């Protein structure tokens, strides 16, 4: 299969500045209007999860910032536990990301940028410091870039959390509006982009919109980094052209390790898709949406047919409930209630849980300050649909054989969370 390597083109474990410039050429000299124009025509969309058109975001922030000046945040936090692509790119090709930050800052009129990574990642921090000092030594006309460490929890890397943190507050989501692109860091319009998005931007500006569109599809141009995990022969981070089929995507990682039941597409902010449906689905934001899932941050986790999808989802549901910032009632009460119901169904069986989940879910979606609760509800709903046979079997005969298998999906060890408010029991 033809998989065009762009971001990973140098093949190096760490592409130093000389290697980077030899492969990609020097940082282009373009004015703000030309950068925005190229990025808009390239059709690049955000690779952090929301797939928002990057050119439109640049134009909006630039327009809002005409008088005040703007700020850039490059989000390299990778809040999704199953994702490894941002970390991989930060380690291997930091100069592409730093180029993208500088070009993005030029486009929106920002004098300062923050590159945010989760705290305690010493290998990442030293790779970035090394790259930044190479650039200083070479006298590159960079914007002023601060590397900022962000607390290691799921909602800390949500864009309003990052703005809150950089404004001196805790890394917790804010009630919106104003949105960061209107008023963000120090009250200035703020461009928040995923680090992979900025790396693509750096290449689109170098080589042009037509070049960018030579990979991918007309609707979803370019390449994307994906994290392939679960039951595949060679789990890892890969770069693929958008628009390949689900079957071809799994083949990039050597194919399924055994017969699959379902694939979790889009990570813990995505949804389950039956394996046969996934195999035929085009890997684009729109194609995955049609299959009932999401591209998310490009995470695809393959679940063997003999695993228990309900037990796997129950573990993730518990993790997502624990990761709530506990700021909004429907999230802090609702997610543990869903996790309890799903855990009961998975480990004990019974007939009550699906009804409880269906009754509570509408009271959770759309009622938080951020989208964390919405994502958890969507994932759990997809489990009840895709694993409907298991739901019936658990109700009639109790837990299934799948529980004997070791869990497939990675869930970080629980950390002590600060619950600021007591739980309220649900009246159903």
């Amino acid at each position: 299969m033809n998989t065009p390597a762009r971001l990973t083109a140098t093949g190096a474990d760490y592409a130093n500045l000389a290697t980077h410039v030899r492969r990609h050429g020097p940082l282009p000299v373009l004015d703000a209007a030309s950068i925005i124009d190229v990025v808009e025509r390239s059709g690049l969309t955000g690779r952090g999860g929301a797939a928002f058109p990057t050119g439109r975001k640049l134009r909006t922030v630039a327009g809002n910032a005409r008088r005040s000046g703007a700020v850039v945040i490059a989000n390299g936090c990778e809040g999704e536990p199953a994702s490894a692509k941002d970390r991989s790119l930060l380690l291997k090709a930091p100069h592409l990301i730093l180029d993208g930050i500088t070009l993005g800052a030029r486009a929106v009129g920002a004098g300062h940028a923050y590159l945010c990574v989760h705290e305690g990642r010493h290998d990442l921090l030293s790779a970035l410091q090394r790259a930044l000092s190479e650039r200083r030594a070479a006298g590159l006309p960079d914007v002023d870039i601060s590397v900022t460490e962000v607390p290691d929890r799921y909602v800390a890397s949500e864009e309003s959390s990052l703005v809150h943190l950089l404004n001196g507050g805790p890394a917790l989501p804010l009630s919106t509006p104003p949105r960061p692109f209107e008023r963000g860091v120090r009250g200035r319009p703020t461009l928040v982009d995923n680090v992979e998005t900025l790396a693509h931007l750096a290449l689109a500006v170098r080589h042009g919109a037509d070049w960018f569109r030579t990979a991918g599809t007309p609707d979803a141009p370019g390449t994307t980094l994906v994290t392939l995990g679960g039951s595949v022969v060679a789990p890892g981070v890969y770069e693929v052209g958008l628009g390949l089929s689900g079957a071809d995507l799994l083949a990039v990682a050597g194919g399924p390790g055994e017969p699959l039941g379902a694939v979790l597409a889009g990570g813990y902010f995505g949804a389950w898709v039956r394996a046969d449906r996934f195999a035929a689905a085009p890997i684009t934001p729109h194609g995955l949406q049609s299959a009932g899932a999401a591209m998310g941050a490009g995470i695809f986790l393959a679940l063997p047919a003999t695993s228990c999808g309900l037990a796997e989802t129950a573990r993730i549901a518990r993790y997502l409930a624990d990761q709530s910032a506990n700021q909004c009632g429907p999230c802090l009460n609702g997610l543990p209630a869903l996790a309890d119901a799903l855990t009961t169904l998975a480990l004990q069986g019974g007939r009550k849980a699906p009804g409880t989940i269906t009754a509570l879910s509408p009271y959770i979606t759309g009622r938080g300050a951020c989208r964390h609760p919405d994502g958890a509800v969507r994932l759990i709903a997809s489990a009840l649909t895709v694993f409907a046979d298991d739901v019936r079997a658990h109700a009639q005969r109790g837990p299934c054989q799948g529980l004997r298998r070791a869990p497939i999906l990675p869930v970080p060890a629980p950390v002590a969370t600060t619950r600021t408010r007591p739980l309220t029991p649900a009246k159903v």
Partner: protein
Amino acid sequence: MPKRHKDRTLRVDPIKCEGHALCIEAFPEMITADPWNYPVLNPHSIPPHLLRHAEHAVKVCPVLALRIETHDGG
């Protein structure tokens, strides 16, 4: 030309709201309780004859989480 009128809707700040539920008692016509006794707001515009009830609900919230948002209607 139709007369311009103000379109008013209820809005709750989900972070400030602590589920005291006084607004639900004050304005049951447009605010109901979720399973945890947090307010669920009717998203439609507040009919003019209920506006005083809405203002009362805003006033009784002990954490100032509820407000009336005004949009220019046409």
